[in-house]
C-alpha cells in the first residue's frame, strides 16, 4: 500500500513537471513571432532539392525586405550619390541579373567597384541559384560544405560583395547603422526576423532569400518541353546539334532536355588556353591539378543577354563563342576530357549549323523572368525614397 502510494506520488510529480514544461513551451511559442513561410513552387522538370540553409528559411517578409535591400544603394553604407552602390547597380534584371555588355556604366560589361578596382572576373547571372549545390563564382570558391565556413552560400556572398574592395568596399558597421536609421527598415526587419535591430547577418539573409526566388522556367524552350509551342526548323536543328555527341556536344556540361538548368554547375577546363596565370580558377579552390584553368559552366538561360562571355569576358558575341568551340579550342594537359575535339581544334560546324545552334540557344531567353515585376526595383524604398 505504501509502495503504491509512493509510485502514485512519482507519477503525480512527473505529470506535474510535464504539464509545467508544456505550459512553458506553449507560452514561449505564443510570444515567438513567426514570419509567413514562402511556398516555393518547383517548375516542371526542375530539381526538387533546394539549396536553402536551415537557418534561413524563405519567408514572404524576408523576401520583401531582401528586394528593398538588393536595390537600395545605401547598402554601400554611403549616401553621396557618386559613392553609392547596391547589388542592383551591376545585376540588371533586363540582363538576367548580370551586368551585360550594354551596361550604361560598366563599358563592355566589365564591372568595377566603388574604388574603381575592376572585378577579377566578369559577372555570372543571378538566376536559378537556389538549385546550385556545387559552388558559386567562376571558381566555386563559395561552396556548401566547402572548407571555408565563412564561404558557404549566398548569404556569405552578400557579405563578400558589400565588403570587397572591387565591389562596394563598405564598412559593415556603417551599413548597419545607416540601414537602421532609415525609416521603415527597422519595421521590415522586425517583420522578417522578429527584431527591429538591423544586423548584417539579417541583411545577408534577406538578400539571399530574394536572390533565391529569381527563377527562370518559362523560356520558349520550356514551353516547347511542356508541349505548348513548337520550335522552328532551325531551332530544332540547333537543339539536335546541342544534344548529340557527334554534333556540338554541349549537353554534357550545359544540360538540356534532362537538365533544365542548362548547367551542371560543375567546373571544366574548356580548352581556351594553353598557359594558365589566373589565380582564381577552380584549382585555387581544390588544389587538384586537373582543375587548372577550369571554371564553372554558366547557365545558358538568357545567355544572349549576358555578354561578354567566359570568365575573362574574352568573347563579346554568341557568334564568337560558337566560332571558338568550332575552330579555336587549344590543347593543354588540363583540358577536360569532354572537350574531345581538342586535337582537331574544335567541332568544325558548318555556317548553317552555327546559326542553327545559336537559334536554339536563343530559345532559352525567358522574357517573363526578365520582366517579372516581383523581381524588379521597387517603386520606392521603405522611407519613400526612390
Amino acid at each position, binding site marked *: 500500500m505504501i509502495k503504491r502510494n509512493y509510485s*502514485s506520488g512519482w*507519477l503525480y510529480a512527473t505529470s506535474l513537471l510535464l504539464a509545467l514544461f508544456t505550459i512553458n513551451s506553449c507560452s514561449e511559442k505564443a510570444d515567438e513571432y513567426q514570419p509567413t513561410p514562402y511556398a516555393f513552387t518547383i517548375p516542371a*522538370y*526542375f*530539381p*526538387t*532539392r533546394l539549396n536553402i540553409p536551415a537557418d534561413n528559411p524563405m519567408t514572404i517578409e524576408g523576401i520583401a525586405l531582401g528586394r528593398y535591400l538588393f536595390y537600395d544603394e545605401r547598402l554601400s553604407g554611403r549616401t553621396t550619390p557618386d559613392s553609392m552602390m547596391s547589388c542592383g547597380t551591376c545585376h540588371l534584371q533586363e540582363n538576367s541579373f548580370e551586368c551585360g555588355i550594354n551596361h550604361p556604366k560598366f563599358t563592355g560589361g566589365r564591372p568595377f567597384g566603388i574604388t574603381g578596382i575592376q572585378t577579377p572576373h566578369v559577372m555570372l547571372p543571378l538566376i536559378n541559384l537556389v538549385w546550385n*549545390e*556545387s559552388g558559386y563564382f567562376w571558381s566555386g570558391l563559395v561552396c556548401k560544405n566547402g572548407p571555408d565556413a565563412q564561404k558557404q552560400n549566398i548569404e556569405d556572398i552578400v557579405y563578400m560583395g558589400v565588403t570587397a574592395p572591387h565591389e562596394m568596399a563598405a564598412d559593415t558597421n556603417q551599413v548597419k547603422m545607416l540601414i537602421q536609421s532609415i525609416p521603415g527598415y527597422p519595421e521590415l526587419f522586425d517583420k522578417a526576423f522578429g527584431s527591429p535591430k538591423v544586423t548584417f547577418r539579417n541583411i545577408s539573409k534577406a538578400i539571399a532569400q530574394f536572390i533565391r526566388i529569381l527563377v527562370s522556367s518559362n523560356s520558349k524552350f520550356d514551353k516547347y518541353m511542356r508541349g505548348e509551342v513548337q520550335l522552328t526548323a532551325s531551332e530544332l536543328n540547333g*537543339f*539536335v546539334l546541342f*544534344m*548529340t*555527341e*557527334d554534333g556540338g556536344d554541349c*549537353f554534357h556540361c550545359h544540360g*538540356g*532536355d*534532362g*537538365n533544365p538548368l542548362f548547367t*551542371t*554547375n*560543375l567546373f571544366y577546363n574548356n580548352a581556351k588556353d594553353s598557359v594558365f596565370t589566373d589565380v582564381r580558377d577552380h584549382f585555387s579552390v581544390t588544389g*587538384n*591539378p*586537373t582543375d587548372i584553368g577550369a571554371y564553372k559552366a554558366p547557365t545558358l538561360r538568357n545567355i544572349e543577354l549576358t555578354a561578354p562571355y567566359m570568365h575573362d569576358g574574352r568573347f563579346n558575341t554568341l557568334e564568337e563563342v560558337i566560332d571558338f568551340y568550332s575552330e579555336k579550342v587549344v*590543347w593543354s*594537359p588540363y*583540358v*577536360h*576530357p*569532354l*572537350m*574531345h575535339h*581538342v*586535337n582537331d581544334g574544335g567541332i568544325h560546324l558548318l555556317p548553317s549549323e552555327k546559326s542553327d545552334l545559336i537559334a536554339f540557344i536563343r530559345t532559352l531567353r525567358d522574357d517573363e523572368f526578365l520582366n517579372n515585376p516581383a523581381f524588379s526595383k521597387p517603386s520606392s524604398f521603405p522611407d519613400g525614397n526612390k
Partner: protein
Amino acid sequence: MRRACKHVSALIFITSLIVALLLTASCRKQDDGGKLIFVFGHKIGGVELVKDSVTYLNAAENEYVVNELQYFISEVTLWKNGDRQVITSDSGVHYVDLDIPSTLSWFPDQVIPAGNYDSITFTFGLTESKNISGYFVNPPERDMFWPDVMGGGYHYMKMNGKWKTTLGDIQPFNLHLGIGMIADTAGNETFVQNYFTVTLPLSWCEVHESQVYRQFTIDMDINSWFESPYYWDWNLTGGQIMQNQDAMHAAAMNGRDAFTIAYEAPDPK
C-alpha cells in the same frame, strides 16, 4: 479519485504491454536475417585505381589515364537455389561516382532472410522500367541524363579520361554507355538497350540470424572493359561511342566480366 487512479494504472499496464509487444516484434524482425553493405572498388591489375595521375596500359597497349568514373547499378539480387531476394534502395538504383566518396558504399534498407546464398546478380545500368527521362531530377544522378534524341533515359556509365594515340597525341576518351541507336538506309532509327546483367557466384555466403550486417565488396576491373571478348583499341574505335552502337555493344559485352565480389566472413556468434 480512487477510480481515476485505477484507470491510470490500467492505462500504464496497457501501454507497457503494447511497448513490450512492439519491442519483441522488432527484435524478432532483426533476427529474421541480416542487412547488407556494398562497397565499390575500382582496380587495374588488382591494384586500386589512381585517377588523374597514373597512366595505365590496356590489352591493346593504349596508354591511358582515368579522370572520371560514374555509373549505375540496379536490381541487385541475391539467389538461393533459384529463389531470389531483390535488394532495393529507395529508387532501386545505386549511383557510383569516384568523385563522391559517399556513393562508394551502399546500405540498402532491406533485411535479407537468413540462409545460404549461392550467387548475386545486378543490372549494369538501368532497365526500361527505370531508364525513363525525368526519373532523376536531382544531381548527381540527373547529370547522367542521355538525350531524348539518342534514346533518352540515362548514361549507364561515364568513364572519362585520355589516351595516347599511335601518333603520340594525348586524346580524350569518353566511354559512355547507354541506349544505342541504329539507323537503316532509309534513315529510320531503332533504339537498342545496352544494359546487361552481371552474375557473380558466391562460393559460400551465409546471411545468418542476429548477424546484422554483411559487407560485400564489388570491384570493377577497369582493364576488363578493353579486353574480352572484344579487343578494344582506341585508335580504332575512337574516343567517343555514344553514337556508335557497335562500340557500345562491344563495351557492354566486355563489361560483363569486369566485376568480382568479395565478402567478409560471418561474425563469430
